[in-house]
């Protein structure tokens, strides 16, 4: 048994890393919006899905024109990020802002709204794709340049080229975002709005604008993640966002919500947990408990971590001063 585990281990860790980076990128969007509005933006999983859909469509239409696979991917990333970001802004503008203007303090109201928006986006995409191509499943077109694969460590790891692209892009995004939030004026403004919206406006900050930008940034990150997800896992549907979205949010909580490196770390940890138990549970339990328990194990570990560190892995303790 141990031998079986060990031979596969490098592969499992590598695959877990890919999944982890996807979660991490989506988690960033959750964490940013949560950071500013204390809102679990459930619709973010649909923003992610929209990115994936745009990615598929870009490949579908531009692959014949654009010879270079990397260029094609770049186009898909930019367009996917843009459309997703704009959708996020629109969602904020038309669904969340009216609530804010009403001064609703109840936390559940925006939450329910977010869930409603989720449903709307899912079905809208389904409607559009239904009319456009009469397809429910969207399949990412295969482009030769991106398809290669290599074997690392004497065949211990089978790695696709696109997996490296995925990891590279997400690391770039994390570094960029960390810089943005900690080092730039926009970053400080985002944090200020997050902590006290009306006082922020007393500093000359336009909260609406900052919030829009937060949604734009978080949304485009989600969109980019979606494109990469579609590239990696090839088949998507209008409902594809739900599960990764949920897990990404869990990852954000795990890492300490509102905390950007935390979201990244949380995503990676969750990806590893899920992939590890997904692959090994049947072996570990002698076939009694299979892959389907991977989420159970992941959640139980999440709870365990939260019990030991209620603020999440990298979260700060914010004790209310009495």
């Amino acid at each position, binding site marked *: 048994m141990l031998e079986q585990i060990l031979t*596969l281990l490098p592969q499992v860790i590598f695959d877990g890393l890919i999944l982890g980076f996807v979660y991490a990128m989506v988690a960033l969007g959750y964490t940013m919006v949560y950071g500013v509005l204390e809102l679990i933006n459930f619709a973010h999983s649909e923003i992610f899905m929209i990115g994936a859909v745009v990615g598929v469509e870009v490949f579908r239409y531009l692959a014949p024109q654009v010879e270079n696979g990397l260029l094609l991917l770049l186009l898909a990333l930019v367009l996917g990020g843009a459309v997703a970001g704009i959708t996020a802004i629109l969602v904020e503008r038309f669904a969340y802002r009216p609530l804010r203007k009403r001064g609703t303090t109840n936390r559940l109201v925006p939450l329910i709204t977010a869930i409603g928006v989720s449903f709307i986006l899912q079905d809208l995409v389904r409607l559009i794709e239904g009319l456009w191509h009469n397809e429910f499943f969207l399949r990412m077109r*295969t482009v030769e340049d991106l398809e290669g*694969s290599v074997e690392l460590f004497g065949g211990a790891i*089978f790695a696709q080229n696109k997996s490296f692209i995925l990891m590279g892009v997400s690391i770039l995004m994390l570094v960029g975002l960390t810089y943005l939030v900690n080092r730039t004026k926009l970053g400080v403004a985002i944090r200020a709005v997050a902590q006290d919206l009306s006082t922020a406006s007393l500093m000359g900050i336009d909260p609406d604008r900052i919030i829009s930008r937060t949604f734009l940034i978080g949304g485009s990150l989600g969109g980019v993640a979606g494109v990469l997800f579609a590239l990696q*896992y*090839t*088949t998507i549907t209008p409902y594809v966002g739900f599960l990764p979205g949920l897990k990404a949010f869990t990852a954000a909580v795990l890492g300490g919500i509102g905390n950007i490196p935390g979201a990244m770390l949380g995503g990676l940890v969750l990806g590893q947990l899920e992939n590890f138990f*997904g692959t090994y549970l049947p072996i570990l339990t002698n076939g009694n408990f299979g*892959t*389907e328990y991977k989420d159970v194990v992941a959640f139980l570990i999440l709870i365990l971590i939260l019990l030991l560190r209620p603020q999440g892995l990298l979260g700060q303790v914010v004790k209310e001063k009495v």
Partner: protein
Amino acid sequence: NVIKIATQSPLSGPQAALGEQIKLGAELAIEEAKAKFKALGFDLVLVPYDDQANPDVGVANANRIINDPDILGVVGHLNSGVAIPSSEVYARVNLVMVSPANTNPRVTDRRLPNVNRICGRDDVQGPVGAEYAFNNLKVKNVFVIHDKTAYGQGLAEEFKKRLEALGGKAVAFVGTEETSNFVPIINQIRGARPVPELIYFGGIYSQIGPFVKQLRERGVKTRLMGGDGLDASEFVRLAGKENAAGTFYTTVAGPVSAFPKARAVAQRFKQKFGKDMEGFGIYAYDAANVILAGLEAAIKAAGGKKPTREQVAQAVRQVKMEGLTGTIEFDDKGDNKKAKYFVMQVASTGNWADNKLIRVIEMAAPGAK
């Protein structure tokens, strides 16, 4: 005076492609029978329900259906997992159901007087697949996967049982509801010892398609086999032409080409709906006609009045008719006395109609008196 026939099948979501066939097949049959029933003094109406391939939705719909007194028969479902609980609901009011596609043995083994099917059963289909794999493909070690539905799991179990009886071995037997990330299972396949020579997947094309694509992309070349859940052209699109080519599958609803009588109907179908008629469309057409035949008999027996549901259910069980797919006649459990089974292989052209028909078997349902 209205008589309604309901269909229940997935009309939205991943399995809509097959579910739609059921609805349209039944619709065609009912359109064609309208005039006849008008003459008997009844307006025939089709009411399609969308069960979303989800047992919960199916049961909720069933509750709605039984509360509409005009509905006297149901054509459905696509999925055994939905058909089994829903038919319990129909049984409460003796509402007759004729299934064109449900292959799980339990559908009829419960001996509900209102439940019938015209297609084959998985306790034949699974063994047919196992025998082909063991005897013809000469494989011993098989990695068995199922989708955890009544259909997929049941089929995979029947396959495994026969395989092991023949002397083969299931190196793993795993269920999964995963739809996008198959990496953990693929890794399990790569790590499985002894090395599997075949992967058997009891499930539906919507899940198997993406699975095959990821499997092949990751360089696993092991052959693949499935059941009637693979029998949809969408499979090729989702898996990719090259990846799908060569996949073996058994099915209970043969292609149009296997039924000479179906050709004309398929043409009308194409004309009316602008779509090709596939296997389950043909079976649904027959299933609807079985109900209509029973209905007609029941109306006669009731002296031209609207019969009760119980009367219709009894009449349907007695029906004997020649359908597109052959003779249809139910045994005491509601199974078709003789059903057909097909072994197929996916063509490399990407055209579903080109798939190779390897063999056809006609067999009685096991366990009938």
